[in-house]
């Protein structure tokens, strides 16, 4: 079986003043279908950078990224946008919803951008809202929702185009403990149910119980285990 997301010998450096600092050093990583992986590590260790490269938002200096066994190294902006639209679902720290769209329109938008807004997609939208428990909120605007509810919409949006990969960067950073548990449990359930390859960055170790495996980011390396 081919893993949906494979990183091979990825290196990324950023300029800090005069010199370059290697944030990611020769990282290789595989996300398997139906598996929920957590990445932990201190602030500034490069977790978001890692996730950005995995998610076609940032190109590595060296190494390869394979999305569904296609190397995206040579992709242009437009092709990268397509990869993000169809193969990757993001859940950000802030829900990052579009302020002027109702809950159902948030999901509809990504389907429309992909160009497959049809009856099937409409049903799928209903199912997704149902499974994140927001059926009754479909006609609400983001400003009418609580923080947890917004994050649920973001989760549903990430699944809308049925991508193979789900990436979450500290999805619970803005939520209290009870809400955090709820949200991560929800992501875990959806990932299992819909057989996605999921990676979540977090610094809340109490959430690791929902994950299948844990990596630690330290000094540019990704080390398996806590």
């Amino acid at each position, binding site marked *: 079986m081919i893993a949906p997301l494979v990183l091979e010998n990825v290196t990324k450096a950023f300029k800090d003043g005069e010199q370059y600092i290697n944030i990611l050093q020769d990282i290789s990583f595989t996300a398997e279908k139906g598996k929920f992986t957590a990445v932990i590590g201190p602030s500034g260790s490069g977790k978001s950078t890692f996730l950005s490269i995995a998610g076609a938002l940032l190109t590595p200096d060296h190494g390869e990224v394979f999305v569904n066994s296609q190397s995206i190294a040579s992709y242009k902006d437009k092709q990268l946008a*397509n990869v993000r*639209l169809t193969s990757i679902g993001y859940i950000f720290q802030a829900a990052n919803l579009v302020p*002027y769209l109702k809950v159902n329109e948030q999901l509809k*938008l990504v389907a429309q951008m992909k160009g497959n807004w049809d009856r099937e997609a409409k049903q799928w939208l209903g199912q997704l809202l149902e499974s994140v428990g927001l059926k009754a909120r479909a006609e609400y605007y983001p400003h009418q929702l609580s923080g947890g509810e917004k994050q649920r919409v973001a989760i549903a949006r990430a699944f809308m185009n049925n991508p193979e990969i789900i990436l979450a*960067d500290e999805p619970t950073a803005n939520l209290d403990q009870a809400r955090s548990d709820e949200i991560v449990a929800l992501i875990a359930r959806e990932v299992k149910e819909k057989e996605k390859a999921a990676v979540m960055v977090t610094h809340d170790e109490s959430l690791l119980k929902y994950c299948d495996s844990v990596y630690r980011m330290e000094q540019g390396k990704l080390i398996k285990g806590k």
Partner: protein
Amino acid sequence: MFSLALKEIHFFKLKYSLIGFILFLMASLVFIVSGLAQGLSNDNIAALEDMAATRFYLQEDAENRLDQSGYIIDELEEEIPRDTGWQPLLTQMYRLDAASSETLLDVTLIPIDPEAFLYPSVIEGEDLNDSDMLEIVVDRTMKADGVNIGDTLYEADQDLTFTVVGFTENQTYRHSPIIYIAETAFYNLDLTPHQVANAIVIEEVNEELQTDIHQTLNDGTWVEKDAIIQAVPGHSSEQMSLMMMIAFLIIIAVFVLAAFFYILTIQKLNQFGVLKAIGAKNLFLVGTTLLQVFCLTVISLILATAFTIFVSNILPEGMPFEFDLSLIASYSIMILIVSLLGSLLSSIRIVKVDPQQAMGRTE
């Protein structure tokens, strides 16, 4: 794309209506000033524009101004019959007293052969007859002074009383209405011992006739109507200053609109980053923005046109204002292009947004 653009406008009603309102004001100002330019121009030269004459024979040193040229045409009348295609054009400034008006009315009197090509037909009342009655047809702008058919207008210097029998339209010259009187009646007054004219006009170009007339009068040149219009005192300078105003308005509009759209875009950069991160393409985002600007501008232009119509209706009668839809259409297209260009400028920022910023880097 379209629905996204409209939903945003709908959601942020206040913000977008304010921008729309500014657009509306700009457009209204452009329309109204252009209406005034058109009205003033009409007031000054409409009669010349409508005149069924193509070439004018004037004295060389008249600098194309009708009032600076003059001929005694007794000889011409004898040598070349008018039915070869020419007519004399004589304009006289008069100040007339109307019962309905407290002030004297400035008018341009033109004696005319009612059967010839120079005569414009009336739109109301009766046409002139070739008689020696002091009957006149006057431009309908005189209605604003309370003049009606059957009224008399009095000229004090020569103690003349004219009777209005009909109204013409577009017969204004040098900001005053033209009153036409039958030539027979005019010469019957014995104001001049000779047949006189400021210019000789012909309806159609006729080289032979033009040469004949030139050889008879022997002092002057043939010029085109457009040259006569450009030489009407005030015309060029009036039009130029109004055109300057319009040009400046549009230049100001370019900057104001570009600034507005730029600020609007800057405010939304974060959101554009998020949309890009979840897969939106530049074309989609820029297209949505341009579409919003297009909708806003079109709506504002429609409202501004309606407002201009309203203004043209409430302006006092005597105010020279001309509602010209084709002119408004061309200014509308110009404003539309200007605002789209303005928003295109901020689209550069949209293209430059880095989708990675959605990840919310800790810094």
